[in-house]
C-alpha cells in the first residue's frame, strides 16, 4: 500500500491533527512514504541520519580499498574488490533515499567535504595489516548489520527498503571477514599474532560504532518515538558483544577487555566501560585518520572536477 493515499483535496487539517494521524500511522506499523505529510523534525532527522549513513559507506571504501592491490591471493582480491564496490553501491542507494526527502547529492557532498556532516568514526582508524580486512568484515560489518537490520524495519519506506537490500550484501561482507579471521587465527604463529593485533585495535572502536549511551544520545528519544530506531544504542551494543565475543574466543583470540565475562544471571556478556574521551575526540575530528580520510575524499573530488565539467558540457551538446 505504499504511497496509495493520494488526497486530491487540499489538506485543511491543523498541524496537530496531521501529527496525530502521522503518529497513529507509525503506531500501526505503516510506512511513511516520500509524498506523505511528516513533521519537519522527522524529515530533518532522517536526512541527517541517511546522509550520514551514505557518507559512512563512501568513506568506508577507503580503509579496505587500501588493501585491494595487496590482497594475498586472487580469490581474496576478487572478493575484496566486490566488497568495496558494494559499499559504494550502498552509498548510492542511501543518497537516493535521502533525495526522496528533498536533499540533493550536491548539498550532501558539500556537507561532507566541508566537514559539516559526520560519518561513522570507525573509518577514522587506519588499516595496518591484511588481518584488518578480517576484523573490519567481521566486526565492523557485523556491527553495521545489527544497526541496519533494525533500520530495515524503520518507519520511513525508502530508508527501510534500502536497508533490506543492503543487509543482504552486508551478510556476505561479514562472512568473508569471518573467513579471513578464521584462516589467520588457525594459521601460522605469525598470522595468529597479526590477527590478534588487529582485534586489539578494532574491538573498542567497533563497540563505539553503536554511539553514546542512550542517556547521552540527544536524538535517541525522538528517533524511537517515530519508529526510525526501534532499539537503543546500548541494546544493540550488548547484542553485538553477546554474539561476537564467544565466537572470537572460540578461535583462541583474546578480547582486549579485562572486565569481559559471561554473567550467568543476566545471560549476557558483561564488558568494561568504553573510553568515551576517545570516542568524542574522534567524533570531533581528532582521530588517527580523520584528516587523511577527508583529504583523500577532497582530493578525489577536486581531481574529478574537470571530468564532471566535461560530462555536463557533453550532455548539453548532446541534447542540442
Amino acid at each position, binding site marked *: 500500500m505504499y504511497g496509495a493515499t493520494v488526497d486530491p483535496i487540499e489538506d485543511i487539517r491543523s498541524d496537530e491533527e496531521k501529527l496525530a494521524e502521522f503518529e497513529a500511522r507509525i503506531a500501526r506499523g505503516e510506512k511513511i512514504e516520500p509524498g506523505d505529510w511528516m513533521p519537519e523534525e522527522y524529515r530533518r532527522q532522517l536526512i541527517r541520519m541517511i546522509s550520514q549513513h551514505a557518507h559512512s559507506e563512501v568513506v568506508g571504501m577507503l580503509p579496505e580499498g587500501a588493501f585491494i592491490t595487496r590482497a594475498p*591471493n586472487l580469490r581474496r582480491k576478487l572478493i575484496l574488490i566486490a566488497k568495496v564496490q558494494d559499499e559504494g553501491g550502498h552509498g548510492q542507494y542511501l*543518497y537516493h533515499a535521502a533525495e526522496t526527502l528533498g536533499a540533493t547529492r550536491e548539498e550532501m557532498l558539500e556537507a561532507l567535504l566541508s566537514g559539516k556532516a559526520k560519518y561513522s568514526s570507525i573509518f577514522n582508524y587506519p588499516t595496518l595489516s591484511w588481518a584488518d580486512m578480517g576484523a573490519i568484515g567481521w566486526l565492523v560489518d557485523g556491527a553495521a548489520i545489527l544497526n541496519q537490520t533494525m533500520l530495515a524495519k524503520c518507519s520511513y519506506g525508502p530508508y527501510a527498503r534500502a536497508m533490506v537490500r543492503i543487509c543482504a550484501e552486508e551478510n556476505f561482507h561479514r562472512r568473508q571477514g569471518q573467513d579471513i579471521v578464521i584462516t589467520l587465527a588457525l*594459521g601460522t604463529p*605469525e598470522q595468529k599474532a597479526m590477527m590478534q593485533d588487529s582485534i586489539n585495535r578494532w574491538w573498542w572502536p567497533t563497540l563505539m560504532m553503536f554511539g553514546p549511551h542512550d542517556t547521552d544520545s540527544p536524538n535517541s528519544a525522538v528517533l524511537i518515538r517515530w519508529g526510525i530506531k526501534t532499539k537503543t544504542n546500548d541494546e544493540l551494543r550488548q547484542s553485538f558483544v553477546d554474539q561476537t565475543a564467544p565466537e572470537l574466543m572460540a578461535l583462541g583470540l583474546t578480547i582486549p577487555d579485562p572486565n569481559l565475562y559471561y554473567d550467568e544471571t543476566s545471560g549476557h556478556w558483561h564488558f568494561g566501560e568504553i573510553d568515551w574521551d576517545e570516542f568524542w575526540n574522534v567524533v570531533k575530528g581528532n582521530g588517527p585518520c580523520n584528516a587523511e580520510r577527508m583529504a*583523500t575524499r577532497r582530493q578525489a573530488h577536486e581531481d574529478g572536477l574537470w571530468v564532471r565539467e*566535461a560530462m555536463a*558540457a557533453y550532455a548539453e551538446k548532446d541534447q542540442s
Partner: protein
Amino acid sequence: MNPELKQALVDYLLAMADDELILGHRNSEWCGHAPILEEDIAFANIALDEIGHAIVWYELAADVLGEERDTYANRMVYFRDAPDYRNAQMVELPKGDWAFTMLRQYLFDQFEMVRLEKLTQSSYTPLAEAAAKICTEEIYHLRHTQAWVRRLGLGTEESNRRMQTALNELMRYYEQLFSPSLADTLLFEANIVPFQTELMVHTLELIVPFLVEANLIPPRGSNFVGPNDVIYRHEHTEHLNDLLSNLQQVARLDPMAKW
C-alpha cells in the same frame, strides 16, 4: 601437441593473462577515488572482469601444463618477479588521470575485442570457448569506455586536451600489443591464434575513425608502425617493479602460509 607448440601456447596465454591482471590491478586503484560515485562502482566492475579474465587464461595455461589451476594461477601472480612477467608496458604505466585511464582501457578493450573474436575460431577448442565467453563481457566494457572517450574528447577544452595528451603518450606503447614473437608464428601456423599484423590492421580500422570523431588526433594517423624499436615482452618500465612489490607484499610475508 608437441612440446614446442605447447610452450608457445603457454607463453601466449601468460602474456594475455598478465596484460589483463596488470590492467585490472591499475583499474582497481581507482576504487574509492573515482570522479563520481557511479564510476567507483562501474570501474571496479571492469577491474573485476579483467582480473577474472586473467584467471581464465592462467587456468588454461595450467591445463596445458597439467598443473593444478588455482595453485598455478596464484604462483604466477604472486611469485614471479618483473622480468618473468609478460605483460605489455602499456598496462603497467601508473593510472594517471581519468583521461589516461579511460583511454587506455578503451584502446585495450578494442584490441581485446578484435583478438577475442578471432580467438573464437581457434583450433584449440578450450581457447575458442573461453574467448567466446569473455567476448560477452568485453562488449559492455567497450560500450562503457567508448562513451567516456566521446564524452571527454568532445566535452570541454580541458578534457579534450587531457585526452589528446593521453593519446600521444599511449600510442607509443600501444604498438607493443601487436608485435609478434617467434612463438606466435608457430601458433598461427597451427590455427590456434590469429596473425598479429591482421589484429593490428583490424584494430586500427576501428579506433582511428572513432578517435577522430571524438575530436582526437591519432599521432601518426593510421600509419601506426612508428620508428620505435620493437619492445619485447620481458622488457618492462620501472613501474612494474613498484606495482609488483605492492601486489605481492602480503603473499610473500610467508609463501607457505594459507591466506
